[in-house]
């Protein structure tokens, strides 16, 4: 099977305290279709930089990234967004506060597509959005609510729906449950897992939560100082305990 995404010798260098610092230090990674990879690592390990490099928000210093065998290293964020979607840690980063829930979903439905000078089709999509939110108690019947009026959990659920409303080839989750209370975090994680399974999404999820790291996904990667120091498949991962992972932090 061909990998969906290939990262070869990825290096990201920044200049800090009068010296060059490799935030990503020769990362090699292959992500296959339907992979659900969990990425663990301490603060500053390079997790978010890796996601930035994949989305194009931050270009690599050297190395290459291929999506479906096509070199996308020099493609900008807008062009990559057609295939790659991302949910951020901060619920405020993923939504437009002065737009309603339905307007946000409509905006996300054209992710990566040109924005034309033609009237948006909000009413044509309302039924679809109702269907999408009907089993979500946090967002049900809130299509016309302005996003700024939503709680953090509701906004993050909306961010997640926006990321998957148009099926992405690769879904990136950047500690997307970290800013939520334990119950909301668990509910969103359950929803995430369910949607990934049902839609057969390929996903790279960054987390600090060891329980989540063990429970979810079919592969586990640990990053430290910009390098992959551990890469486990599903079988190896299933034998892990939280204690085992602590030594990598």
């Amino acid at each position: 099977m061909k990998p969906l995404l290939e990262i070869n010798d990825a290096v990201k260098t920044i200049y800090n305290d009068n010296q060059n610092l490799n935030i990503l230090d020769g990362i090699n990674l292959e992500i296959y279709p339907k992979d659900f990879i969990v990425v663990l690592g301490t603060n500053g390990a390079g997790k978010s930089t890796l996601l930035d490099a994949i989305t194009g928000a931050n270009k690599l210093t050297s190395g290459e990234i291929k999506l479906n065998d096509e070199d996308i290293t020099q493609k900008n964020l807008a062009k990559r967004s057609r295939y790659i979607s991302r949910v951020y840690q901060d619920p405020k980063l993923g939504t437009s506060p002065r737009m309603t829930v339905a307007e946000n979903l409509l905006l996300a439905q054209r992710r990566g597509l040109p924005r034309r000078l033609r009237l948006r089709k909000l009413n044509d999509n309302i039924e679809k959005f109702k269907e999408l939110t009907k089993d979500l108690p946090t967002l049900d019947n809130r299509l016309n609510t302005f996003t700024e009026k939503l709680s953090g959990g509701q906004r993050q659920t909306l961010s997640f729906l926006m990321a998957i409303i148009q099926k992405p080839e690769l879904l990136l989750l950047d500690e997307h449950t970290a800013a939520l209370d334990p119950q909301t975090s668990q509910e969103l994680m359950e929803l995430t897992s369910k949607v990934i399974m049902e839609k057969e999404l390929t996903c790279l999820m960054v987390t600090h939560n060891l329980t989540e790291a063990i429970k979810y996904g079919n592969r586990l990667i640990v990053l430290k100082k910009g390098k992959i120091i551990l890469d486990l498949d599903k079988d190896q991962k299933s034998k892990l305990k939280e204690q085992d992972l602590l030594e990598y932090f």
Partner: protein
Amino acid sequence: MNLIISTISQGFIWAIMAIGLFITFRILDFPDMTVEGSFPLGAVTAVMLIQHGYSAEIALLVAFIFGNLAGFATAFMYTKLHIPSLLAGILTMTALYSVNLRILGKANMSLTKPNNIFNKYGLNKLPVNFNGIILGIIIIAIITFLLIIFLNTEKGQAVIATGDNEIMAASLGINTTVMKFIGIMVSNGIVALTGGMIAQQNGFADVNMGIGSIVIGLSAIIIGEVLYPDVPLSIRIITIVIGSIVYRLILMIVLQLGFNTNDLKLISAIILALCLALPTIREQFFRAFRNGVRSK
């Protein structure tokens, strides 16, 4: 009565400028100082063209286009050269002072030709100052209609999203740079158009007539928001018109109370500061009131 009608007439015309300002300040969340230069740019352009025999409509159209160019300069400095938003606007505003002097050839010029938008289409047959009200309503209706239609297009929604949350907009593939160009250019185009209209209404253009225009526009927006909070976008634009008229009426009352006209800018700034502080004052008042009730 004439004074009130004149004040309302001015309120309508200045509301057009405030709508332009609304695009940058509220939709794009971009504090654009360019307007202090693009407003007189529209005025001097319109007056010069009319003085050279062009029609008032052509003069306004060219003023609108020139305003767009001023907006382009600011947007270019901000998005391509990464100059901070405030500074980019101030640089364009400063540069426009010389440009306006170049266009006009001197600091001010009277409109001696009868060709004036306020005298056309039978507007001159209306009672005094009613031409400003009627023309203001027509232009506001056209701009509001076009603006609402635009904001309901995919591109318009992308402009709103860019101002609302640029990181999200970019991650959805929206070219936020283009959206900023569109917003800043159109905004300054409308501001310059208003400059052209005010010049025709007043019968002259002055390179200094932009000073304080940002305060006038912002006052209209803020008063509208204070009077009518939490309204949909289409209604928000109408509240700007109401805000503009209310602001002019407050100024008129203040001047009628005998204040020196030299203090006009000071009074304008105080009115805006009060309007901006009103939500905080109101909240503190209610908090003190609630605490008072509780302690009893």
